[in-house]
């Protein structure tokens, strides 16, 4: 029995916006990356899973329970971290997470105990006795994660958990997501509009666009994929390609860019030497996972290359 099973799921908001359009997919436990551009229907799908929104047509089951009729049972074992701010600024993190634990059905003593554990897991220590209003964005994201975990859910829905965080904060949040999925053994559906960001922690990827499924595959399918180095030059791409081919690299053209496999660091040196000898203007260099980008083409793929690789300007 799949963890989540959607059949021909359509949701139309009052006003006519079609957020989900005949979405059919099965999700197995693991860390599932849920990618799509803003407005692709990711948040809507999560709200339908929770029973916060009723499907206009079609059906979706979580743990084999129909969301339309068994919402209470589902919500007892699902944790949800919304994309937006959702914390009262005048309560302490301890009081708030403990209250949310009790709202999920934990007796008072258990809620207190698990609140302390969860806040420690997400990395909040002495701050947890201070009111949330004084927290940084990163600390608030941690409290949001803690309140979603406090009742030990079987499934965690994380809606854009890295939104608004600086690069270090993103790394820490992704590491928390990875630990939650791998060490805690909780199934995680984590959405992002940045494929390159979440692919590192996921075991499975689902891409949607315009409310429709565009792709779904285990990340294991991509592990054999080689990294690709894409080089853009102002002019003289042909000459660069010839020079690289002569040096023994399997270079090919794609538009204005030259692509070559990147098994190690040697191609960087070759490109540098070739550009210097030919006197070329380098515009940009970046790493890509070519197959992944093919699989998750627009819109997620468009951002994948930029995020996954470090672009260099010369």
């Amino acid at each position: 029995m799949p963890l989540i099973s959607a059949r021909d799921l359509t949701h139309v908001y009052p006003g006519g916006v079609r957020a989900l359009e005949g979405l059919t997919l099965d999700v197995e436990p693991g860390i599932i990356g849920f990618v799509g551009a803003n407005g692709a229907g990711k948040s809507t799908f999560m709200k339908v899973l929770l029973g916060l929104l009723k499907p206009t047509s079609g059906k979706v089951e979580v743990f084999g329970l129909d969301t339309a009729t068994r919402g209470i049972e589902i919500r007892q074992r699902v944790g949800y971290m919304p994309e937006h701010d959702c914390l009262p600024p005048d309560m302490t993190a301890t009081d708030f997470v403990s209250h949310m634990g009790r709202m999920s059905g934990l007796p008072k003593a258990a809620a207190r105990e698990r609140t302390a554990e969860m806040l420690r897991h997400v990395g909040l220590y002495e701050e947890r006795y201070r009111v949330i209003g004084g927290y940084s964005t990163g600390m608030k994201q941690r409290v949001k994660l803690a309140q979603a975990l406090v009742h030990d859910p079987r499934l965690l829905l994380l809606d854009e958990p890295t939104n608004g965080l600086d690069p270090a904060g993103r790394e820490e949040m992704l590491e928390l997501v990875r630990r939650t999925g791998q060490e805690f053994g909780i199934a995680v559906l984590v959405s992002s509009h940045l494929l390159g960001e979440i692919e590192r922690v996921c075991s499975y990827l689902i891409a949607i666009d315009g409310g429709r499924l565009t792709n779904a595959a285990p990340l294991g399918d991509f592990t054999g994929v080689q990294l690709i180095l894409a080089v853009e030059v102002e002019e003289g791409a042909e000459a660069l390609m010839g020079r690289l081919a002569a040096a023994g690299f399997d270079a090919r053209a794609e538009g204005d860019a030259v692509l070559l496999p990147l098994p190690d660091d040697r191609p960087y040196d070759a490109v540098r030497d070739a550009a210097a000898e030919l006197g070329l203007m380098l515009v940009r260099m970046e790493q890509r996972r070519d197959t992944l980008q093919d699989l998750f083409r627009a819109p997620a793929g468009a951002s994948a290359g930029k995020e996954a690789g470090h672009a260099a300007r010369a």
Partner: protein
Amino acid sequence: MPHALEPAAGAIYDIGYRTYEGLREGRGYAFRTLYFHSLRAAFGLNRGGRALWVPWVLFAFACFPAAVQVAASALSAGMANLISYHDYFDAVRWTVALFCAAQAPELVSRDQQHRTLPLYFSRPLRTGDYAFAKLLAMWTAVVILVLTPLLILLVGRLSMQMDFGAALRSESQFFVPILVTPVLAAVTIGTIALALSSLFARRGIATAVAFGAFFMTAPIAEILNETLEGDPKRYAALVNPVNVVQGASLAVFDKKPGRGDILDVGLGPEVFFGAVAALAVAFTLLLVVRYRRIRT
């Protein structure tokens, strides 16, 4: 959990993630949790020091006349009778209205302002449960606010008497109206304040609208009473919900409004009870519809 058995390197305090195998309560428990949480919020508890000021100052105002009466009665050996049970709501009605206008947004608007509602609705609770838990908490808060001074009066009067048993028997005729008056205030003023507040995410706006519903309608009722003739004149007072509660409260004490009072127009108790019921039902429906339609 196999991870619990492997000590993490360099972090002996990290006992790993522990699953929860204990009791999980359901919808009724979530409802009760939200009810008590909201009741405490109505009195500014669990919200830091500043949230305490408004509810407790108003609570002190509501109890002040009763305390004065008890003190005066004690000093004058039971002769001074400044205020009695049936006058009491009249004396504190604007305090009660102010309390509701100020605290109802604490219960419902802040969850919208800070967008906490999705967290509640993603838990084992229905939207209607949320609305009724909040309503019940509001009612309880108003009952506490209005009943406490009446109980202070009652205890004061009982302690003045030598024969406690006889005193209890003579006061027993007031027990029902003492208990009913707070309920009338709760289901009318409390429900209106909560339903109106639920429409606004901003606390200041919610307070202003509820305040207007209670305080702006009072002069309107006066003007209508002055300018209209016949039946419309008699019913003009009912434009103000606080007047409705005052009239119903006098009716349960079996008292008549004072001469010249806006309520001194010969309306029967059934009119006031009917108005209380109509307002309570109408604004409860507004609240329920609001949460059925709300988008989170």
